[in-house]
């Protein structure tokens, strides 16, 4: 066997042994037991101290507030979302007091206007909505209500309203297309407004020969868009003809 081969063989063997040795010492014992990670990581995470107590823990001592919240618009918002982790407070209520977020900047984290929030979610513009006065002056954080019923659809459907405002349909009031009873504004989920359901509805203004002002473009209802509903192609709050 040539000398080179033996020498290289030794060199590679040494490398391989070093590699195996390093692997033996550095790879954690439980690596790969349950997947491509250290299985014992689950235990170390489990061993971390608890920070949150959960809203049921609060009920024992703060029953009036808990009951009030459960019946309110904030029934889905847990105590510690606003008060921060409170496990230490539960263990020693006299020593550790959770923070109460009284500043105006806090509530808009959820209620500030943001186009990505679902339609109907109560949103306000924190700059314009009763500036400088703390939110708690008018809204009880544990049972929030609008002190008066909002007058405009924009209050809860801001995204739709501002989209429509810059569209070809800007001049059409919401009520042209939706018969929204007043009660919808007070209890929006219980009383739902109607929505257009047929092609003929749009045709009322857009059919060729319809009884509508001449500047409104008309289409041949028999052929245009075939059997599809108009809003499968045109967004009704921002119709485009492209």
């Amino acid at each position, binding site marked *: 066997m*040539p*000398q080179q081969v033996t020498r*290289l063989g*030794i*060199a590679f063997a040494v490398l391989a042994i070093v590699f195996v040795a390093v692997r033996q010492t550095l*790879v954690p014992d439980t690596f790969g037991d349950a997947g491509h990670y250290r299985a014992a990581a689950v235990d170390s995470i489990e061993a971390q101290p608890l920070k949150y107590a959960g809203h049921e823990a609060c009920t024992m001592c703060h029953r009036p507030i808990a009951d009030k919240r459960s019946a309110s618009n904030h029934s889905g918002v847990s105590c510690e979302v606003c008060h921060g982790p409170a496990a230490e407070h539960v263990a020693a209520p006299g020593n550790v007091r959770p923070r109460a977020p009284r500043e105006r900047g806090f509530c808009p984290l959820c209620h500030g206007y943001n186009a990505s929030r679902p339609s109907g979610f109560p949103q306000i513009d924190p700059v314009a909505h009763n500036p400088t006065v703390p939110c708690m002056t008018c809204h009880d954080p544990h049972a929030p209500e609008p002190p008066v019923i909002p007058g405009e659809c924009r209050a809860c459907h801001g995204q739709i309203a501002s989209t429509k405002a810059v569209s070809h349909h800007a001049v059409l009031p919401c009520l042209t297309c939706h018969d929204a009873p007043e009660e919808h504004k007070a209890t929006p989920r219980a009383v739902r407004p109607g929505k257009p359901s047929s092609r003929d509805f749009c045709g009322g203004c857009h059919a060729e020969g319809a009884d509508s002002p001449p500047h409104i473009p008309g289409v041949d209802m028999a052929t245009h868009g075939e059997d599809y509903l108009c809003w499968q192609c045109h967004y009704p709050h921002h119709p485009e003809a492209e």
Partner: protein
Amino acid sequence: MQGYIYPNEFELRWGLLIVLYPYLTGLVAGAFILASLARVFNVKEVEPTYRLALLTALAFLIVAPLPLVAHLGHPERSYEIFLTPNRKSAMAMFGFVYAWYLMVVLLLEIWFDYRRDLVLTAREATGPRKWFYYTLTLGATDLSDRALQFDDRVGRWITIIGIPSAFLLHGYVGFIFGSVKANPWWSSVLMPVVFLFSAIVSGIALVMIIYLVATLFRSKKVDMGCADKLASFLFYAIVVDFSLEMLDFIHRLYEAEESIEILSQLIEGRLFVSLIVLQIVLGTLVPLISLGVVSPALSKRSIARIPAEVRRLIYLGCAILVQIGIFSIRWNVVIGGQLFSKSLRGLTAYKAELLGLEGLLVAGVLLVLPFLVLGVLVKILPPWPDTELPASPEA
């Protein structure tokens, strides 16, 4: 920013360093392919650059993973990809492709090729130098004819294994991009092939630059036969590379998927300078035409007869333009692929920072570093064919 983009597309995740990484690995693969021309395909003219090409490949290979490591941001954990290999991750498997290429291909080939020189230098030298070179020989000091013949045979075989390995090394980088199916600018089966040929182009050009500049500094005469041959191969490689790229381009135009509109906006706007001007006109067409006219690539006696000194300068100029062009290709792939929104309705912009881990400064250092490494390698293992070897005692 222009049009509609999603919030998470505003900032580019892959910046300058990720541009650098395919550029550097491309140079490695290209330089190695050039070396294999001399070794396996017996192109005698390019022999003077054989060792230089090997050392260049090694120097750039050593630096190639650094941009990745810097980008990922935890250099101290990088070795873990070898300890706990994730076989489902194409990116993680790169570690093994890299290790194979470094240990089994490049280092071995260089070792077999230089063994005789190492042994002779070790015999000649004194003190620590002697021990250093002796260690490099690994104690294999047999210089009999049989042993030397063995070196040569093994070297050839390693090169033969090395060619597909070099293809793998760089084709793999193209594969990573080509397999991102959500990105219409990247997703293409041609990607690995295009990457490979652009790698060959850049590697030949790089070795040519280093060869021409180094001979100048050593005040030696440039072997024009070698330079002409390099220029011809550069020409052929550019032809293949450019055809493949055009094929990809025409294919996209003909398919005209829904992304075609935003991609044409991308090319006409954001990428105009780097794609049309730098990559295609300066980086491809100008070198292609100049080399076609000046080098003996098309006919034995080149179309325009030009004195050797001027020809050399033209070659050097072309090679530098090619480097700029190939760097632009990497830029256009990596940055270009992140400039348009997945909504296909908007474009964002990329602005490189100066300082910071992913900034221009670090990128500059990483570009210079391979040349420093090469300088050290050349000191230890002189690649010049005209270097005087200490007379061997047997002779």
